[in-house]
């Protein structure tokens, strides 16, 4: 290699090292920003939750707004979760039929549908449907109130917005999710039976009898009650995202999207932990 070639190679190497030197601090800064943003978000969420808890347990209680939110979360989500539960029941019935037939275990079809619906599919489908409908609704409504200074106006009127806006919505979600789950389960079981009986007639009584055979209340109560935690997550995340919004119409859209995405994600992640806890506390026979 000529002397000119060596010089050129050395220059290229030097330039690479220079770029590396610039890139490293940039990457380090970016990662540090992400990590600190992550902890800051959770820290702020924790403080928000604490403020809501304090506000929720001290009078005056906002009963009227709480009842309005029960209607908003419960009654208006009811048809949606029943429909989603019914669809899941049909799909489960169709999918499990082909597998059970292959293994010659058709008699176990009712029990597999009933257990799948009640133990997992009903709760998680309810959690996700409510995350979408109610999470987006709470996030967008509170964000819109925030950017138009309505939340400031509430505070300026000597009313605690954590009590009036957040606590009422979160408690309504906590209370309504288990009830909506029961509705989704009912829809799933009914349509699971319909799907099965259309192929191979079986009475509903027989279907339920075989499905619940040998089961006790502790097999079905914990999966239903765990959705109260889903309700807490949905209400908390959506209220938090809504009440900290900034930046006009764009901020409102962002808050609604973030509420749905984060609530759905946390519902699924928390389900992993809750299922493990249920298995430890109520082990299968």
């Amino acid at each position, binding site marked *: 290699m000529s002397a000119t070639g060596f010089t050129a190679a050395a220059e290229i190497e030097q330039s690479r090292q220079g770029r590396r030197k610039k890139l490293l601090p940039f990457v380090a800064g970016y990662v540090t920003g992400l990590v600190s943003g992550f902890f800051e978000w959770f820290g702020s969420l924790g403080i928000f939750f604490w403020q809501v808890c304090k506000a929720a347990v001290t009078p005056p209680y906002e009963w009227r707004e709480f009842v309005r939110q029960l209607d908003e979360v419960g009654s208006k989500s009811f048809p949606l979760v029943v429909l989603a539960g019914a669809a899941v029941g049909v799909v489960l019935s169709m999918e499990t039929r082909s597998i059970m037939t292959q293994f010659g275990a058709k008699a176990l079809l009712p029990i597999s549908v009933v257990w799948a619906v009640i133990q997992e599919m009903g709760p998680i489908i309810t959690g996700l449907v409510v995350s979408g409908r109610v999470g987006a609704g709470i996030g967008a409504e509170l964000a819109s109130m925030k950017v138009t200074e309505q939340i400031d*106006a509430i505070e300026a009127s*000597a009313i605690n917005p954590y009590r009036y806006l957040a606590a009422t919505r979160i408690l309504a979600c906590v209370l309504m999710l288990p009830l909506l789950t029961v509705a989704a389960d009912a829809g799933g079981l009914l349509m699971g039976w319909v799907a099965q009986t259309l192929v191979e007639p079986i009475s509903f009584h027989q279907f339920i009898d075989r499905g619940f055979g040998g089961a006790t209340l502790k097999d079905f109560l914990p999966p239903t009650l765990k959705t109260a935690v889903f309700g807490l997550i949905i209400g908390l995340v959506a209220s938090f995202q809504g009440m900290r919004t900034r930046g006009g119409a764009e901020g409102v859209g962002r808050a609604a999207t973030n509420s749905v995405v984060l609530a759905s994600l946390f519902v699924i992640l928390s389900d992993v932990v809750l299922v493990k806890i249920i298995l430890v506390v109520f082990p299968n026979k």
Partner: protein
Amino acid sequence: MATAYDIAMRQAQDEQDGSAPVVTVDNVNKAFGSQKVLNGMSLSVSRGETLAVLGRSGTGKSVLLRLIIGLDQPDSGSIRIHGQDISGLTLDQMSEIRKKMGFLFQHAALYDSLTISENVAFPLKRHRREMSRSERDDRVRQLMAEVGMEGNLDKMPSDISGGMQKRVGLARALALEPEILLLDEPTAGLDPISSGEIDDLILKLQRERQMASIVVTHDLHSARTIANRLAILDQGKVVIEGDYEDLQQSNITFVKEFLKQS
């Protein structure tokens, strides 16, 4: 040397004859990130007095009102309401002080899911629980009549004009019979006739209720009409304070320029 008892007695006496400041802002600093908004801001307002705060956009006029009502916290300095420092108060403690204050937001900030009458009744429902429904309805009608809006009780905020929204916002701010009234740009975005009507309304309320009022505005004409004192802000602090004649006689370049352009 004056004892605490002497000071308390003097303060009580001052409050009785109306000369004690109801709102005192003392050397307040406030920054948002690297942007310093208030820089050693000081002012005070007594009962029955209206102070108009003027200044260019972005000089921290609205921030000043938000600090006084506790929606934001100052970085340093103190804000006292009836002699009580409000920094470090909890939300519920601050709520007790806010019951004595009325705030008219720049864009009225009416609750868009409630009717106009429900907007005005909102603070009454929560803080005047002893009131019966009919008493509350009467009070709402009376407040709406005071602001000249008696015929529009069941309309939604989106169905009325900006000037009407300001009137309803004012009625809501007055619902709890506040001792302190904070008005953020009460005439901004209104035509001259509506501005004049709002000015007349504020003057009338001031005469009848003798509140301590702080009005943030760009509108020098409106400020001269409704205020006893005017304060001009520049670079986050009061550069001059007094009546309009004091401002006219000022040698400060910014004040001269501000008055010339207004």
